[in-house]
């Protein structure tokens, strides 16, 4: 039975600006978690720095508010150490594609079962609206002294190139749609990326709610759109290419929905389980390291056996 979305609210006051896209994202979080009936003690939101970084404080599941750009790296340690946890990253576009881009790519390569939700508003809001890696060249948002000098990165294409096995885009004002995407992303086994377009009411006067309202369309409106890889190897290339092509659309029409989904690729947990027999059944935190009296599980005999290659027996005279 689904729990109540309100059960996932904390009593911390949300200090985002009025009409911030994060309210829509939070609403989607509460509903998605309730519908998925997530266990708050076995769920962890990991965030970076900036407005998105505050997300975990407003959600009643475990929250780890980390450093700028490093949310994925912290999340990686958490998920590898305890694969039984649901680990969800909430980070900004600057966090993930600027200062933390290396980690973003690395997670795709690993296909570790983590969901990355990118709060994508084109600006660094908390430091007063500098251009973020998703802001297009030549645009001059409210607080920029001069138009942006750099080209934007294509987050969807970068996720595909990095190896994410679930790639989607949502829009913060379409909360119900976003909630469904979140649920699919969280349920996907493997590295999932969800790019969430959101207005920054204070600093981005170009990508406003009005701007997106006119352009956003759902990929699944087309009944023939099928992002799912059903057979590993054969379909992959075609599915990636069609997703890539859609990711290039922007100026007049902006697609949202699931771009690509491949549940057939082994996850890092699968690889680790093959290598380490007890990895899944007895996650690392549950493995004892010592006996009751505190002596190490690797005792004198075990040490000698384990490291016999290093031991030289002196010849008896």
């Amino acid at each position, binding site marked *: 039975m689904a729990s109540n979305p309100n059960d996932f609210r904390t009593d911390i006051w949300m200090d985002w600006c009025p009409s911030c896209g994060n309210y829509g994202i939070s609403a989607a979080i509460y509903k998605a978690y309730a519908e998925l009936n997530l266990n708050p*003690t076995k769920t962890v939101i990991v965030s970076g720095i900036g407005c998105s970084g505050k997300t975990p404080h407003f959600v*009643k599941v475990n929250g780890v508010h980390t450093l700028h750009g*490093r949310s994925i790296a912290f999340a990686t*340690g958490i998920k590898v150490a305890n694969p039984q946890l649901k680990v969800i990253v909430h980070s900004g576009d600057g966090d993930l594609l600027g200062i933390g881009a290396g980690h973003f790519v*690395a997670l795709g390569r690993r296909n570790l079962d983590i969901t990355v939700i990118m709060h994508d508003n084109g600006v660094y809001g908390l430091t007063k609206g500098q251009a973020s890696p998703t802001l297009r060249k030549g645009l001059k948002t409210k607080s920029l002294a001069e138009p942006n000098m750099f080209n934007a990165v294509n987050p969807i294409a970068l996720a595909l190139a990095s190896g994410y096995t679930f790639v989607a885009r949502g829009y913060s004002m379409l909360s119900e749609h976003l909630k469904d995407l979140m649920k699919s992303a969280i349920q996907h086994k493997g590295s999932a990326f969800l790019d969430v377009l959101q207005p920054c009411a204070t600093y981005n006067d170009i990508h406003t709610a009005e701007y997106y309202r006119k352009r956003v369309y759902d990929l699944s409106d087309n009944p023939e759109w099928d992002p799912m890889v059903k057979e590993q190897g054969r379909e992959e290339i075609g599915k990636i290419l069609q997703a890539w092509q859609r990711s290039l659309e922007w100026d007049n029409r902006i697609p949202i929905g699931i771009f690509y989904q491949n549940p057939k690729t082994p996850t890092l947990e699968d690889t680790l389980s093959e290598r*380490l027999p007890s990895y899944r059944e007895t996650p690392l935190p549950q493995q004892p390291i*010592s006996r009751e009296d505190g002596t190490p599980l*690797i005792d*004198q005999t075990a040490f000698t056996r384990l490291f016999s290659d290093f031991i030289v027996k*002196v010849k008896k005279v």
Partner: protein
Amino acid sequence: MAEELSLLLGGAQGAGLESSANILTKIFGYLGYGTFSDREYFSNIKGRHSYIHSRVSSNKLPLSLTYPVQILCAMDAETVFTHFEDVEEGGFLVYDASLSNVKGELIPSIEPKLRERLKQTFKKLGIDSAIGSLTAYLHESKGVNVIALNYSEILSELGKRFKLLPQQASRYLSSIIVGAVVGLVQLDPEAINLAIQSRFRAKPELVEHNKFAVDLVSSQIRERYGLTYKLDPSRLGREEFLVVSGNDIVAMGKLVGGLRYQSYYPITPAADESFTIESYQKLIVDQKNLGSAVVIQTEDEIAAITSAIGAAMCGVRSATATSGPGFSLMVEGLGYAGQNEVPVVITYYQRGAPSTGQPTRGGQQDLLFSLFASHGEFPRIVLSSGDHEEAFYDSIEAFNLAERYQVPVIHLLDKFLANCISTMAVPDLSKVKLDRGKISSKVGVYKRFSLSEAISPWVPLGSDVVQWYAGDEHSEEGHIDEDPINRVEMYDKRMKKLEIMDKEIPPESRAVFLGSHDAEYLLVGWGFVKGVALDAIEELSKKGLRGAYLNIKMFTPFPSDYVNNVISEFEKDKVIPVEHNYLAQASMAITLNTGIKLEKAIVKYTGRPIYKHELVHAIEKVLEGSRREVLTYGQ
């Protein structure tokens, strides 16, 4: 008969020197000798000059090296040019006879400064720069026994015997070196067979080839030269040795200590530790599963530290291993661990610094950096190990301290220890205890940063509670909180640990006085200096000069009273810091913590270890009045 043997084996990087050293160490081990070997090499995969410098002892487990050496074995011409001055009068030089006409200035891999020094030396000695002239000089003026073997003949004989192509046979250059030492020291054939078998266990045909080559060379030496280096039989009386590098022993310590997550980004001289851990990550003994350690090669050192913090939050013993450039990247993460009271261990192998510095050489230049790295104030533990044995127990204790006090622990080591192969006693695990501090699985309302105690109860992430962490100043619940009173309470809670740690961690485990209190002078050092300091003290005691050594093992919390008391027993100009850095950084830490300002110093920052002979000389000079001695011996 001699109690000891020092030897130097040199050749091009990638030519098999490590294999020679491994086999020789095992041979000496089977025969009960203690050995200690340093590997010196360039940041290079193939071709540049590298060498193994070893000390073999019949009556102790050596922990340092010295010059001159009694045996120098050269795989190539560069070794002869680089090390001919390292050979003792009456010692042995083994080289390839076909190189006799090779001239020093024609070897492109010799660095310009050494080439210049060689030119000056040849001029001074009045000889030309050919190896033949050099060996003739060594023989005539220093009584060195020059053993010219024809390497290509030996290899072609091997090739003929086993039908090997010339390029296949050339891989056995390392066996020529082993054969030379075996022949000169007249080592037991049974030990030789065992050592070769153990090295090439997986490849039986290599065992035969190696045995053949070693035999051929050692019998040639015996027949042609009849020379012998007479090494005393071992009087150590050991039944077994653990033969390990510093990287290996730390890996073992971590695994025994319950390591479950290790992250790393490839860097010299730390990466080998993670390799060893990964090789033994399945802790299966007699079909019994004792757990497993996950090793993750991360995308950079920032991810190495931050993922290790994430894993530690989940309640697993978690660590990362790195060197200076990597630690520089970890600094922000270190502060996060301090602010969030996460028990994470950073194993820090110092190398020649700053910047890229000397990637493959040693140093102790990062002490002050490790003490103060990261912005702001937070408690940390900085622990240093003096030898392989200390490194083992310290690797375990690092986890205990991290978890007991919920602080990041920096375990300082260096390239010297990382790469030195030591024959040590198999560790005694009966005394080892794993202490996980206030870890619990409490259910109900939980405050991660409860102000009820400085060290709050610790329920790992993913237990049956919901909890929050934040790098921001936070409330007891882990939410952002900028209230000034909360700020003071939370700040005080963290900093109070400094006091608690200082009170609880026994001072005698943080600094160790070695020697007698009636000593006339005191050496003060840390890390790898321990071995050579003790050896130099012993050497000087033979001349009637009594000395002692203060081995500082923990720099924060610093054992101020203990160090103060020890130093106060000596006249201040008889207290001599010995360190591998320019500033005498430990001496500065002493001043900072005790107010005592030490004026003397013996320092070395060439990237090579301090050798006993040069330290003995430097101590004498300092005791005669010199304020500062800078050591430079070794290539």
